[in-house]
């Protein structure tokens, strides 16, 4: 019983902290939380918005979780998503006009995955051939990706109709992801859940996944057991990057229809939070991505009811992960 109360206190502490923060900013925490809950779960529209928001978070979380199983900390989901979105838009706009959906959409998914995979393999190679820490290289490459997208959207990919706030030309209507009924929820959401299930299955139920977990547990033992550590880590980064790249494709084909300089901005970092909140377990990331999606949607409500900027919920997100990290995994093994 005592452990239950301690556990509850830990779960509540970030929310209490955030309430104190709201109070210090002159907002009523109870009213704010109420408005947040109502906007995220009050009606089907809200729940749909949460599903839409959590889709990229789930995929970028998987992009963190897969390499993490092989002992790598990939913070590059942000850049991998952006390059995936860039390649998707480029190919979609210039080569797939008038192509039927059953050809075009799979090609776009592949392009997203390819873009992300390229942005994932670079830090993996740098780690193996130049001993460069992947956390630092992926972080630096995120900035490079951001400016690359900026370059294309202001340059070769700029829609001539866009002036001060440039964006790329629109994707063909046929290439947009189908939505459910009259909602904005698109099949990308289902795709993301399926991806999480597949990743879970591969990691926990196949031989490749077993090897990956051995590496993550103890790379030296894995080497001695004859596992090709370098090749496996490379694979993990390529697949992680590809999954994040697909998130970029979904942002373009499912939501925005065109590329903006800020497309997907911040999603990679939120995915990182989601993955670490779930201790890099693919199934748990479904839950944490959904939670962070809900908090994101609730942020807009916060803006409307208490006039606080929607970005303030990222403080709540950080509080939650800091609590999770502080509590630690206890005796549970990976």
């Amino acid at each position: 019983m005592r452990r239950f109360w301690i556990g509850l206190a830990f779960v509540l502490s970030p929310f209490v902290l955030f309430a104190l923060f709201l109070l210090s900013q002159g907002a009523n925490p109870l009213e704010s939380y109420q408005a947040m809950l109502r906007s995220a779960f009050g009606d089907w529209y809200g729940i749909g918005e949460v599903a839409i928001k959590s889709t990229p978070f789930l995929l970028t979380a998987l992009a963190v979780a897969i390499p993490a199983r092989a002992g790598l900390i990939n913070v590059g989901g942000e850049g991998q998503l952006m390059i995936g979105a860039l390649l998707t838009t480029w190919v979609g706009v210039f080569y797939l006009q008038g192509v039927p959906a059953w050809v075009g959409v799979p090609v776009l998914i592949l392009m997203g995955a390819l873009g992300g995979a390229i942005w994932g393999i670079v830090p993996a190679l740098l780690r193996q051939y130049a001993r460069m820490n992947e956390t630092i290289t992926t972080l630096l490459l995120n900035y490079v990706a951001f400016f690359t997208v900026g370059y294309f959207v202001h340059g070769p990919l700029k829609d001539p109709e866009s002036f001060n706030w440039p964006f790329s030309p629109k994707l063909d209507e046929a290439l947009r992801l189908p939505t459910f009924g009259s909602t904005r929820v698109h099949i990308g959401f289902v795709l993301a859940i399926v991806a999480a299930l597949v990743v879970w299955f591969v990691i926990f139920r196949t031989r490749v996944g077993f090897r990956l977990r051995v590496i993550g547990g103890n790379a030296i033992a894995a080497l001695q057991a004859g596992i090709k550590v370098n090749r496996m880590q490379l694979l993990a980064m390529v697949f992680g990057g590809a999954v994040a790249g697909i998130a970029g494709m979904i942002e373009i084909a499912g939501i925005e229809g065109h590329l903006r300089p800020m497309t997907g901005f911040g999603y990679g970092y939120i995915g990182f939070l989601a993955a670490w909140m779930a201790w890099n377990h693919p199934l748990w990331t479904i839950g944490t991505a959904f939670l962070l999606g809900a908090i994101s949607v609730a942020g807009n409500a916060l803006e409307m009811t208490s006039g606080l900027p929607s970005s303030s919920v990222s403080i709540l997100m950080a509080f939650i992960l800091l609590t999770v990290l502080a509590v630690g995994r206890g005796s549970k093994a990976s």
Partner: protein
Amino acid sequence: MIVEILTGAIRAGTSVLFASLGEVVAQRAGVINLGTEGSMLGGAFVAFAVTYQTGSPWIGLLAGGLAGLLFALIHAFLVIQRRANQLAVGLTIIFLAQGLTAFMGQDYVDKQINGLNPIAIPVLSDIPFIGPVFFNHDILTYLVFLLVPLIWWFLFYSKPGVLLRATGEREEVVFSLGKSPTLIRYLAVSFGGLMAGLGGAQLSIAFTHTWVENMTQGRGIIAVALVIFAAWLPTRAMLGAYLFGGAQALQLALQGRGLEVSPFLLFMLPYLLTLVVLFIVERRKVSSMPESLRKVFEGERGGG
């Protein structure tokens, strides 16, 4: 143009050098703090806001340093006490700092302050070439010039410095001397945060005199990366920081001349340069890495 770029390099590199020097000390004690980016951002904002409110850049500077220190304390607590993964905690602190400063900073975005202005040192600043490049800067730049040899002396020739380095290499030795590695690490990480906070403050109240959301733009991450390039030596951290500053100054100089290059390609320069110098250095064997950092870098479960 060369004088312009070199002067610009020092002006733009100072904030990174502050953060890098702090990280040299923290990492020598065995803690890597990616939250340096968060400390810088916190320092930049708090220094700006306090300068605006009080009218005194000196109080602002102090407050900025303390803000950086506070963020570093969160890191220290989670990493040292709770044994959480260092890289993950650091990233979360960046996220926290971005949220907090974006939130509190929205009222300060187009405010004006009386910050720290360049002070030309008499006589010295009149020397051709060298004068404008080195002796016409804000006071924090001069301070950091002095800190480089000071920290170098502290690390290698003072008793506490030796203990600090021993903490990063073999904490059991420190322990057997009756000293507390935990305390030493706390102090080292706090110092790192303080320095990053001062670096951020230099950025907002001395270099740009403005506050912009997320204005550090990865400088803290670059500062951490440059420590590796610097092989944990203060003098080489100086070289690294001014290389970064040089890339920035080059970008500004080229832009100012209306060159037909997309500004976005120029924005990438500092990040690409950091990757390139890391690549060159790390191709050679890294032997000077503090022992306990090796565990973090090579993915030993780092307490995760």
